[in-house]
């Protein structure tokens, strides 16, 4: 647990490139949902994956930067309340770093459950608490509206992080090689 928040060059590079992919997915690879102003965002699956590999700081920054920049490109200005909530979600996803053994090449039932519990908690805190509260504070939006939106977002982002994140982590674990395991045959 001790180096959970260590920031190496690799963390920074992962953050920069992760945010670039996050942006790309956030803008182009989403599936619209029946509820207005929400959509099924594949980007959160990517965010959860990167956060698990590189930790909370990278997770928070990837979602924050990626979300802020794509808002800026599309709307001309970031929508701070949701951008901050994205950052919080990414940060909490990051607690799966070190608590799963994906770097050692295994990602099995136990890890899958742990990862998913963490990401669901992250999504709940971000979308059912942080985003609505900020919306009320900053924009004085109606309470019932923002909480409804928040719950829908939490569900959809949990599915995205759960499905895509888990698949990515399983694929990644397969590429990890164990000590002294590579021989030519």
């Amino acid at each position: 647990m001790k180096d959970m928040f260590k920031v190496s060059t690799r963390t920074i590079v992962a953050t920069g490139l992760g945010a670039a992919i996050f942006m790309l997915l956030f803008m182009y690879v989403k599936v619209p949902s029946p509820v207005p102003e929400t959509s099924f965002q594949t980007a959160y699956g990517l965010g959860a994956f990167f956060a698990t590999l590189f930790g909370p700081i990278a997770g928070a920054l990837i979602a924050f930067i990626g979300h802020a920049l794509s808002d800026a490109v599309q709307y001309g200005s970031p929508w701070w309340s949701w951008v901050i909530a994205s950052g919080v979600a990414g940060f909490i996803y990051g607690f799966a770093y070190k608590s799963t053994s994906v770097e050692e090449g295994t990602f099995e039932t136990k890890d899958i459950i742990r990862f998913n519990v963490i990401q669901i908690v992250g999504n709940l805190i971000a979308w059912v608490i942080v985003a609505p509260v900020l919306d009320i504070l900053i924009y004085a939006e109606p309470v019932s509206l923002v909480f409804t939106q928040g719950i829908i977002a939490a569900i959809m982002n949990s599915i995205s992080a759960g499905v895509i994140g888990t698949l990515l982590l399983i694929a990644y674990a397969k590429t990890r090689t164990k000590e002294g395991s590579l021989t030519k045959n």
Partner: protein
Amino acid sequence: MKMKLFSYNLVDTYVHRLSGLTKLICFLLLTFAVMFSYDIRVLIFVLAFSLWILRISLIKYKQIRLMVIYVAVFLITNAIIAYLFAPEYGVDLYGTRHELAHILGRYSITQEQMFYQMTKLIKYASVIPLGIIFLLTTNPSEFASSLNGVGVHYKAAFAVELTLRYFPDVQREYHDISQAQQARGLELSSKTKLGTRFKNSLQIIIPLIFSTLDRIELISNAMDLRGFGKQKKRTWYNQRRLTKEDVLAIVVSVAIFLFTIAVSVFVNHSRFYNPFI
């Protein structure tokens, strides 16, 4: 495909001449002012001011048309849903009720609701020109140093620089991978079912992400080899020295920011301006 993220165009105007740091400071001050205040008079003033700045920085409508459409759609949907969810929210906020017309069931039109939604619309709208000005007049190269200048840690600021640097690459790669996969038999046209389309788009995202992981390795090696992260801080090649023009811009923004706060504290005694009492 668009290769540059923002169509930053180099024209010589007062706004363009300002350093990136100044623009970031002004952007933040004015945005915070707008986010804080719920006084329609202040909001209209800031909106008018930022539209004026938009004009003098010679931004063409062509450059921002898409954003304007996006924002308009957003504002309209937001207004409609907000009304549907809470038609009496304005009444709660302002504490009085002046009904203009009754529509159906719990839905009626009140002065308070109209005023609340109007204020909110302007509040949302007035940040947009500020963001647009900042994005379109700031050289992306100055962006990271500006963030560092307002107190963001240089490592986080550099992560933003890397995002700007590699976004076009990632975008091109996404395109190339999608074609390579199609050439090996993957169906991506919109004809297929949603579920399959989703599964197939994973076939592109996965190689994109894995090749990015390799690239992260490579880039961080390259950066380590050139001493990134050695010191507690770093300097920036593209940083500009602040001039008198910069100071003027900052002073004006600080004044507007303080003015907004002052109006709330001394005039309205609240973030809201209430014309109904």
